[in-house]
């Protein structure tokens, strides 16, 4: 059933594109709404009839994966959910994948957020995606969520010397003193690894500037695609790896499944999103070709006149 659906939608989309290309050769212009329609079809079809592609982790993603994989059991990792619902489809899949990986390796996780809207997404991730796979893990012992604090870059700037000063309690108002995870953790300098998921300000960049560089703490970033190119200059000294957009998430998920087969049945939104991505990119490239044909034909005609 799925295969038939895939074939029919592919025929529809590519047939339409060929017709448009033919039209453009004839000098016909394409209305922008037609472009929107094609993009919608290219995205919707693979969601209805899932198309998956094999992903192989590139070095920038693999270095984050290896870091989590090779940390000794019982290390403390801080994961900061610095995003809002608008960024969530891109960033949440990687946050979920890395959280699972950390729990699987027996690391202790401190969850937090520099965005007010991140806290709700964080608790959603915890209750719906991350924790159901680990019923044996205990709150406050294996993981803790300290939630959101206002203050933008001021927050990392304070917790680099003292976490309690900014976060006297966790989200449920349990004092940090009484939480076992914080027995040996006073400041961010005592952490073994920090991953910031985000793409706005404050976000990954602030973690590099205010915690990674001054504190010498290894930082990994999971960013929305838009800002991924701005993260590359920090490689490899200031960040150890980058997960850029859905592609980064998909690569991490596939690497996680490859190394830990127990995750084979987990939900993989990153991998599933690569189907719509691929098809939509093909459609966009086709439209770039069509657009250029129309443009150059128009210019040649102007020259002739």
């Amino acid at each position, binding site marked *: 059933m799925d295969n038939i659906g895939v074939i029919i939608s592919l025929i529809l989309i590519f047939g339409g594109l060929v017709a448009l290309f033919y039209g453009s050769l004839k000098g016909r212009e394409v209305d922008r709404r037609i472009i929107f329609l094609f*993009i919608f079809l290219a995205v919707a079809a693979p969601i209805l009839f899932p198309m998956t592609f094999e992903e192989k982790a590139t070095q920038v993603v693999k270095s984050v994966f290896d870091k989590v994989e090779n940390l000794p059991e019982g290390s403390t990792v801080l994961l900061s959910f610095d995003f809002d619902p608008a960024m969530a489809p891109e960033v949440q899949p990687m946050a979920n994948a890395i959280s699972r990986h950390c729990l699987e390796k027996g690391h202790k996780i401190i969850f937090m957020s520099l965005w007010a*809207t991140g806290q709700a997404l964080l608790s959603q991730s915890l209750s719906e995606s991350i924790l159901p796979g680990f019923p044996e893990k205990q709150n406050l012992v294996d993981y803790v969520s300290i939630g959101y604090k206002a203050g933008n870059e001021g927050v990392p700037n304070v917790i680099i010397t003292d976490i309690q000063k900014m976060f006297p309690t966790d989200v449920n108002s349990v004092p940090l003193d009484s939480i076992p995870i914080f027995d040996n953790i006073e400041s961010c300098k005592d952490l073994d690894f920090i991953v910031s998921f985000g793409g706005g300000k404050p976000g990954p960049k602030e973690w590099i500037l205010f915690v990674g560089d001054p504190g010498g703490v290894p930082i990994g970033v999971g960013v929305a695609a838009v800002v991924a*190119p701005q993260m590359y200059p920090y490689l490899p000294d200031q960040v150890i790896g980058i997960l850029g957009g859905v592609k980064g998430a998909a690569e991490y998920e596939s690497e996680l499944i490859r190394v830990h087969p127990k995750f084979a049945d987990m939900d993989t939104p990153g991998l599933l999103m690569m189907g719509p991505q691929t098809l939509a990119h093909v459609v966009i490239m086709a439209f770039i070709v069509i657009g250029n044909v129309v443009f150059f034909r128009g210019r040649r005609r102007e020259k002739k006149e």
Partner: protein
Amino acid sequence: MKKTTFILMAIVSALFLLSWILKAGSLSGETDNYILQGFLVTFSAFLTLSVLSFLYADNPLYKFAEHLFVGVSAAFWMCMGFWTTIVQNLIPRLSDGLSKFFEQQPQPGDYNFFFFIPVILGIMLLMRLSPKGGWISRWPLAFIIGTTAGLNFVRYLRSDFIKQISNTFVPLLGTEWQGIGHFFSNLDLSASGQLVAIAANWVIFLGVFCGLIYFYFSKEHKGAFGAASKVGIWVLMLTFGASFGYTVMGRISLLVGRITFLFRDWLEIIS
């Protein structure tokens, strides 16, 4: 109101109601408050479609969704700021009575005169709302701008300037250079090979070098300098191209997120 607008509004309202009823019906076995849940899912779908309708043309539904979003997010941020910062961080350090009122654990031992300074600055900032006392808000604003500038200046100078300079210190012949003869006899074209490593280092160096020359304004771009600046602008354009590509990927991910919501949570045609 025009007649077509009226008819369209009636159709949209009817569809909304229909969807609400059907959704509530399908949720009735799963949750207790299925009527509310049905409404929430339908309303989310309605807002998504309203925003997407902008792609066709600007319309009142889009405007409604946009204004709602702006209003709700402003209120949300304000509430979060109040409860997580003022209530959780400040009040327990100021007074027991207030902590009790907000059901916060007071923090004995942390009463400190200094915590009244941010309170005063905060109140001064709110003077913006007063037509006559607006000038008072400039003082805390000056404090914020001054401290942020100072804080950022050192951090940026360190991470984005000094660290980035030292990051360009790459050996142009690679780390394992043993002479030209050795290089050619062991030529390795794989991604981890010496040739690729050397090429990558050259790209970093030339990219930084030519990019900086492009942004050098004290000399006219002629001759060799001009050529380097040309290379610089090419490097910039390639970066922007990559950035654009990434942006397309990001935007499509967002669309996938929305369409998945419509198909899975609203229409239930996928699981």
